[in-house]
């Protein structure tokens, strides 16, 4: 079946349908990771977006039930150059095509993804639509009718859509080094990837995942040892209530670690501003330097917005990490709260695990606050 990608600027790419037929509209973004497409597809941070994979051969090792980062695909569509029909890996359970179909996702393959990526790079993220329902060249009136709809599309209510509806607790998978009593982490699900939970579980933490809208009072009832603010989709600034909640939670002095959207919302709670990047950072090869320049780490990233570090008040906190390519803020250490946040994904999946030590740092902070160990 033919499929077409129509960009907001009117450009059309002709390809072949993969996944479900139909029409879908979303914000078209590109991701540069060469592996980890299952993790990408199931990452809630892609809510509202149509993902383009820059690597041309996708689905080579198939899909499996272990590597999903959430229960479903949150993205609006999927663009690949070639979707592998005969995957090979000992864990492969199904093809990309069947996985997309099962999740009701519309995709397109066989287009010049590099050309598309260059367009997005030059003009910035752009809305677009994938359709199997008409040929835009043959039926220009249908295209004309769709274009305003494409232009009007905006990712809204993102966090509220992707967050869990009720709290759920996960037991540790390994005992902590300090003893058998697990630390209790409350994880505010803003669109959380499963691996954040797994990273905490294997460090001896019991994790209670809370809906993103949970209040400070609800948190207090749990009396957790630490607060984890997860990644998530959309424009951070739209989450006005959640930001207020987070401010209140942080004011209690609870040890807090924020990732991605969690990082952005903390900064907003501290009075700083966020801005939209031209085409974002989405890939597994982003270099992030510590502010001391003592080390630079290769990180996994997926974000379209960034914290403007110059808007962060000096007495509130300071930038801890910055992107070695474009200098944007990649992390903040707070003075007035017991909190540190990063823009990148130390939990990886997919991508490098080089910064997973940040979870150890979080655990140390919780133990210190609890008096189990001296303040590290």
């Amino acid at each position, binding site marked *: 079946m033919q499929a077409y990608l129509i960009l907001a600027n009117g450009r059309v790419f002709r390809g072949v349908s993969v996944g479900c037929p139909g029409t879908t509209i979303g914000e078209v973004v590109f991701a540069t990771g*060469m*592996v*980890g497409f*299952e993790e990408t597809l199931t990452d809630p941070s892609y809510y509202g977006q149509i993902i383009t994979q820059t690597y041309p051969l996708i689905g*080579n090792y198939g899909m499996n039930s272990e*590597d999903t980062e959430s229960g479903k695909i949150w993205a609006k569509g999927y663009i690949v150059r070639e979707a592998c029909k005969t995957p090979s890996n000992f864990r492969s359970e199904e093809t990309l095509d069947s996985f997309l179909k099962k999740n009701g996702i519309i995709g397109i393959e066989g287009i010049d993804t*590099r050309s598309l*990526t*260059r367009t997005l790079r030059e003009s910035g993220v752009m809305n677009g639509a994938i359709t199997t329902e008409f040929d835009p060249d043959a039926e220009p009136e249908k295209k004309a009718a769709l274009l305003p709809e494409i232009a009007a599309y905006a990712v809204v209510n993102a966090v509220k859509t992707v967050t869990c509806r009720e709290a759920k607790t996960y037991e540790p998978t390994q005992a902590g080094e300090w003893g058998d009593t697990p630390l209790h982490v409350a994880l505010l699900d803003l669109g959380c990837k499963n691996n954040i939970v797994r990273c905490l579980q294997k460090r001896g933490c019991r994790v209670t995942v809370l809906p993103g809208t949970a209040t400070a009072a609800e948190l207090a009832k749990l009396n957790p040892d630490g607060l984890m603010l997860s990644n998530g989709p959309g424009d951070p600034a739209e989450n006005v209530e959640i930001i207020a909640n987070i401010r209140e939670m942080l004011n209690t002095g609870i040890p807090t670690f924020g990732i991605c959207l969690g990082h952005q919302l903390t900064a907003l709670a501290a009075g700083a501003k966020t801005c939209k990047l031209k085409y974002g950072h989405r890939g597994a090869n982003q270099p992030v330097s510590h502010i001391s320049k003592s080390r630079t780490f*290769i990180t996994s990233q997926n974000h379209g917005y960034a914290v403007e570090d110059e808007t962060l008040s000096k007495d509130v906190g300071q930038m801890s990490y910055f992107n070695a390519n474009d200098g944007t803020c990649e992390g903040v250490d707070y003075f007035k709260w017991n909190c540190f946040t990063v823009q990148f994904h130390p939990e990886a999946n997919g991508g490098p695990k080089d910064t997973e030590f940040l979870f150890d740092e979080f655990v140390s902070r919780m133990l210190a606050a609890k008096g189990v160990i001296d303040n590290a």
Partner: protein
Amino acid sequence: MPKDPRIKKVLVIGSGPIIIGQAAEFDYSGTQACRALKSEGVETVLVNSNPATIMTDPDIADHVYIEPLTAEVVERIIEKEKPDAILPNLGGQMGLNLSMELARSGFLDRSGVRLLACKPDTIDRAEDRQLFKDTMEKLHQPIIPSKVVEDLDDALDFAEVIGYPVIVRPAFTMGGTGGGICEDREKLHEIATNGLRLSPIHQILVEKCISGWKEIEYEVMRDSKGNVITVCNMENLDPVGIHTGDSIVVAPSQTLSDKEYQMLRTAALDIITELGIEGGCNCQFALKPDSFEYAVIEVNPRVSRSSALASKATGYPIAKVATKIALGYTLDEITNDVTGETCACFEPALDYVVVKYPKWPFDKFVYADKSLGTQMMATGEVMAIGNNFEHAMMKAVSSTELGLDTMTLPDFEKLTTEEVIEHLHVQDSERAFCVYEALKRGVPHDVIYDITKIDWWFLDKLQHLADIEMGLKTGELTTEKYLNAKRFGFLDKTIKRLAGVDTLPEAPKAAFKMVDTCAAEFSAKTPYFYSTYDEDNEAKQFIAERSDPNKKKVLVFGSGPIRIGQGIEFDYCSVHAVWTLKQHGCEAILVNNNPETVSTDFDTGDRLYFDPLNPESVDHIIETEKPDGCLVQFGGQTAIKLAKHMDEIGLPILGTPADAIDEAEDRERFDELLERCGIPRPEGRTVFTLDEALQAAQEVGYPVLMRPSYVLGGQNMIVAYNSSDVIEYMGVITKHVDMSHPVLMDKYILGTECEVDAICDGTDYLVPGIMQQVERTGVHSGDSICVYPPTTFSQKVIDTLVDYTGRFARELKVVGLVNVQYAVQNDRVYVIEVNPRSSRTVPYISKVTGVPMVDLAVRCTLGEKLKDMGYGTGLWRNGQSPYYAVKVPVYSFLKLHGVDTMLGPEMKSTGEVLGIAPTFHEAMMKGLVAAGYQFKVPGPGSCVIISVKDSDKAEAAKLAWKLHDYGYKIYGTPGTAKYLNGEMIPCSVVRQMSGARPNVLDLLESGLVDYIISTSPHGRDPHRDSVKFRRKATELSIPTITAMDTASVLVDALRGDHDISQMELVDIANLHREAANGK
């Protein structure tokens, strides 16, 4: 940290002659290192014995020593030049071993020379088997059950414990020399004995064989701050068990999920961190296909062949970055040259697939054992880039120049399906083609997988290609079918052949994509492209934005993969051609497909097209580039083959016209040319069939020289002494050569061969120098020891040589380079062949004379005149030279089983070294030492074995006498011994290998044999006694001389009282300054 200010002068050690396992990639890394040093204002001293390299150019380093790579010589260079530091990790295993030797002996400390990038204990922990095991255990990195042993019994005992099959890996040998898989006790006995001997520290590793696991490699880098990155990972199509240098390799990995990818990536980074390497490192892993179980196979703590491949596959300049790290910079301080904006501390993202395909020498060595294992056999490789695997694979197959246009090998088509399946068990250089044949026959993938363990993913992709090929053969060729075949890499010519049609639907135009390290995330400035059938042509946009319309655009064709007969020399020529074009106001556009070379570095040309060198592929590039002309004379036969096509499509060839090539190659036209020039040549004939050949041989008279026309490096060239030789060789030749070109038969002239290269502007010519060959005619010029200037020619001969060369140049309308080979017999000069193109000797003669030959030749092609260039015309400096230069060929016989080591008209050497000194004898000695000949002093019981054919016996007697006089005991095979005794030379008889024990085999294994002189009327066939004898000697690393002239110079050098430690060290950069100033 910024650059260390204490480093002002650095010594770089090259990797020596090209041998299997150590090829052009180290010229590439060394050249990049020198340029990086220069750009940082560091004075560089370079030492390398290989004159064919670009790194030994005076433009690349400030001081250049083409001297033997021995510790003694390097120490003397350090004493003379007083560098602050030594850069050890860019010159391959050779450079690394030498540096470590100097560090361990304490010499570097005593001389106050710092060792950059690594410490001896780092190297030991990566390369010493036991220390490596300990290090991996400390890191909790799994390794394969193995044991380091230093004697045979331990090896046999351990194998009983872990069970067969086992793999033997000798310590500190390069390219896995001396290793192998042993199925049983007997095989282990053989391989372990050999491996122990070959290891310089007499140590081997015996390990559990895990063949069938996936082989995965990671190229990683680290700086002094501890920042670590992965440049690239690669997956071998062939599972563990075949050396990665002999494997088809794909980048990035295809069948690994993020979990496996990150697991191995983390392991690689942990390893480089633990070893404390500052620079590049290559980690090889075996990964079990059905679990997360893996094992570390090998760690190379230096820039390697794989890192050259990774550099070209990603665009990330590993050698340059490694050099800057060695100078003190950290990864975050180094700019990514490709984007110009982002930093080098990142991991390249690919948006294409890369396939590397090895180039083996088996088309040349028809009797060689083609089976592949843990010892590398390939002389070179090609790389191909596509946006699907199939396209990249098809490009790779075309680039290897095997004469194939799909993966169908005609030999396999003749087999029954049962035979094809049976043949799948054979693990040799043709296995991918055998798999393809099986797929075409519909053999189920699980059958193929069970035998080959080639991952299903690859089988599915190859199946796709097979289906397309079969599909083209049946039914109508629809536009859809045609376009589909194009997208997956089928050439128009192939589609026409398969579909049996003369006309095709409208051909799609190729769109070129950029290799930019970042999958288009950032705007890149690299002019590095590959072809696809996409919409967006980035090269076209690049040209529109950045190309200077006022500049003349010239296409330069490279020389493809390194192979015997077409080596690194042609990359030297191509690169120099590009540089000269750029200096003279042109835009130089390079096309090549060899990832090991300087020519495919993205900043060599104004633009680089990494694509096959076939007519259709080049047509697409021309369509996009619209060049004003092209240069074909610098890229060896690969480029020359395109000349005719360029003529047909009307793209002007700068310099010598295409017709001149035909005139020189076509027998009849060549005869006419000689007649016009008034030059004699040996009598000869052109034949197509066996009958014609026998007839011609009769007319010309035996012995005759036979060779196919249109070949390079004497491929399949032989001297036939009788009709049975003619019958045997016509059989071999017709099997391996396209018989639309005839076989040439010439009267074989016994004389002295010499070679003359000249530059011609159409009117005047300049001969930089004449090279005389030590071995008489019959030994291929590429395999001859070669002396500049000649030592025995009369002035009359020299005048004739220069005069004839000039006549050819004018008559062939040469504009650029011409190479002529002559035979001189009793002061009479005969022409053997004329090549109106650059030759193997161009870099050598350029370096020793100081005449920049390629530079002058390119300027001629641009219309300049020699008389305006300041180097004069005629014979340069009247043939006078302050130094003698002796080129000595180097072989890779140890790696090539079943190949006769006897020299003949077919070229066998893989590389060469140079000795430069004020006298002939000193230069000869330097050359021989550089080539690895050991000058032994006879001890008690030391002996020499002589076994020569009848015509060599008289000369052998003279040599035997000298050797006896020098203190050697002489052994001879029965015929030789009888002759020597008849000449009153003491010589003991030793039985041939087929004779009863004890025989010559026992003598060889005694360890008492220092040298062997062996010639025989017949060679090649590995079943012959003489061939077996030479093979055995080679495997035992006993120097075996197979030409009387070589033996003669060696014996004289042995007896000479020259001391290499007293010989002058020649900085050839001075020679060049003098030549340029002497204008």
